[in-house]
């Protein structure tokens, strides 16, 4: 199924929650959705027989300076097609529903995004820091991150 068709299907189903299609320069194309609708859209993408995106290949946080985003890369083993899903979040208190009960694979990726960007995934089974120590301050992949000089008295 082509990206445009997927977008049209999603828009028909979810209306305003599906914001736009990022096609030009994007590979795969991204369907931008409202953060609150991520979970419903995900479930639909996974369960609709024509779409059946059964695997979440990648979930990444992105810092677009004025906004955060969470990008989902989906792939369907059944139909062998791929699509991206993106949710734009405000810089202050970025949070959106977790999709780890749609794709269990999301858990580690979400933890990583939480760890490195500070994006909170509501309803996640287990949202802890994953790569950094539990008492690390700040979220290093944010563009405005300041490197600390010391960590527990050790020079970084």
């Amino acid at each position: 199924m082509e990206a445009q068709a997927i977008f049209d299907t999603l828009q028909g189903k979810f209306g305003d929650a599906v914001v736009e299609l990022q096609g030009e320069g994007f590979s795969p194309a991204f369907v931008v959705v409202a953060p609150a609708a991520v979970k419903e859209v995900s479930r639909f993408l996974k369960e609709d027989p024509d779409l059946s995106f059964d695997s979440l290949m990648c979930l990444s946080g992105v810092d677009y300076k004025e906004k955060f985003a969470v990008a989902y890369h989906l792939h369907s083993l059944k139909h062998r097609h791929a699509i991206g899903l993106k949710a734009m979040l405000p810089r202050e208190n970025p949070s959106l529903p977790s999709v780890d009960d749609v794709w269990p694979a999301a858990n580690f990726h979400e933890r990583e995004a939480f760890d490195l960007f500070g994006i909170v995934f509501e309803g996640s089974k287990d949202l802890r820091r994953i790569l950094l120590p539990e008492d690390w301050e700040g979220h290093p992949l944010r563009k405005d991150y300041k490197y600390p000089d010391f960590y527990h008295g050790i020079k970084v």
Partner: protein
Amino acid sequence: MTARTDALPTQEMTINMGPQHPSTHGVLRVILTTDGEVVTRAVPDVGYLHRGLEKIGERVTYAQFMPFTDRLDYLAAMNCNCAWAWAVEKLAKIEVPERAEYLRVIVCELNRISSHLIAFGSYTADMGAFTPFLYAIRERERVNDLFEMICGNRLTYNYARVGGVSGDAPPGFLEKTKEFLDYFEPKLDEYNNLISYNKIFVHRLANVAVIPAEEAVAYGLTGPNLRGSGVPFDLRKDEPYSVYPKFDFKVCVGTGERGKLGDCFDRYMVRINEMRESVKIVRQAVAQIPDGPVLAKVPRVFKPPVGEVYFRSECPRGETGIYLISDGSVNPYRLKIRTGSFVTMNLFEKVTRGLMIADIVAVIGSFDIILPEIDR
């Protein structure tokens, strides 16, 4: 005799397996909660090797990031090199000379062999048989000799470039590659006789940590771990890139020959069989390789167009996906590397429930994880 649990209260024991442990393949820490030898819960704790590769990527140029991809998966640095090159080429739409693509495929497949050799060798060492490990290392050294010949280094190759490869194969390289393949292919049968079908080895692996196909897909497993569950999905075949469509090879899947489909033994056998397929691919590539340049013209100050790509390539430890956002400057804007081992660790807690301590080792080995890839 009836069990008198109330009379003798017992409590579970929490054990730290790692970060320093001989068979966690690096600095993985697993927090085991055990009831005697039986593990009731095994929680992986990763991140001990986090070097912030993604952050580094935002600060160096596209070409400069190439040596860092060596450190992504040091056992399969060629595959990571090429994955990065392919991702950037996809972003900037660069045409790569055909000879360069052939060379990439040759080194990638050789690296897949050497990486699977380590997987095989360290797995047998984990299971207590130390000898096959040294045999595997011996074969791997030969691959390293080949790599040293073509790129000058034995571990961190930095061979691929955006637009091609750093240098053409030196004279004699292709002949030596063929020589290696002729030497190596019979060794696989020897391994099978020596250890793969050994009764003890089979018993240690069969029916341990069974991952059904649906679960493997839902948890996003890729590469040999996914194929071990019987899902015939190989990016080289199903989403072909480079010159892979020109080669004839088989996608190896688990068959459940010694137990349930998707157990440790299947994942192990997939790797052994994949080595054979890689030998096949390299043979064809060496026979078909065309002449020509090996590096496309890429401007020295390389600025790809604005855009976002996600490139997936089949690395020995599963799919290495590179999500690359360019803002048109010389540095990547955002770079996310999705690696096979990282995703696999997500499933770890689930499949290890109720196994024994010795099985934890077997599971870690069968996933063939590598820590720099998990922690990046």
